[in-house]
């Protein structure tokens, strides 16, 4: 897997992993992902457009990072999931814990507005 991290103009961190998020793929990106998503107070959008497969090991990375981020006063949102990835998010009830949006723009708008706090 590869990962691109960009700081958007309005102080949102945009993280775009790409590839297959199984145990092998997560090994490649877990350190830069955690560094970008979980080490300081930030608004983080994880752009899933280039993730073509998501296994539970990827969900664990999202949960552990979102939890660390929340403890620092930040928030995470997931966006732009492909259908197979969306099916895994739906089946595991991720939306109860991490907000999910159809597009990166919608995720950014919600994070800026403070709406990306699930429940």
């Amino acid at each position, binding site marked *: 897997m590869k990962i691109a991290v960009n700081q958007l103009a309005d102080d949102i961190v945009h993280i775009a992993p790409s590839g*297959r998020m*199984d*145990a*092998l793929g997560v*090994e490649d990106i877990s350190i830069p992902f955690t560094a970008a998503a979980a080490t300081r107070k930030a608004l983080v959008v994880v752009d899933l457009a280039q993730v073509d*497969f998501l*296994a*539970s*090991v990827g*969900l*664990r990375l999202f*949960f*552990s990072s*979102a*939890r660390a981020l*929340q403890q620092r006063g930040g928030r995470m949102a997931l966006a732009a999931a492909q*259908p*197979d990835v969306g*099916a*895994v998010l739906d*089946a*595991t*009830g991720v939306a*109860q*814990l*991490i907000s999910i949006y159809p597009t990166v723009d919608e995720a950014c708008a919600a994070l800026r507005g403070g709406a990306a706090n699930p*429940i």
Partner: protein
Amino acid sequence: MHLPPEVSGTERCVLRGEYPALTALARWCADLARAHQLTPRRAHALDLCLTELVTNVIDYAYPAADPAHIVVDAQPAEGDLVVTLWDAGPAFNPLEHAAPTPAADLSEVRIGGLGIDLVRKFASRISYARVGHWNRLRFTPNG
């Protein structure tokens, strides 16, 4: 190499029990889906369930220094597909483990058990048996 009994009409994939095998497994799933014209939904369920189960075997059943083999058999039947996963680890029935209770917030999330939970949701007719020194898990990926 001692392998579990093979039934005629099945397609077999033999993997070494370590992470690089996941790449070969994904390719085998894609080839199988193409050859048997599985729906995209069933093809994804096949890939997801096998990825979860094989990862669990690598992580928990086999010593890292000396991984044994993992064998996957697929038996297509009238638009259906019966998949059998064999591993030579200690006897272990993943179905005996209760599904995780949904967490109300992030601090409560249980990190373990997510993989088998996904298998329960993306497969049906899941069964376990101990056959000789093999664990045999059988399922049909949902289409």
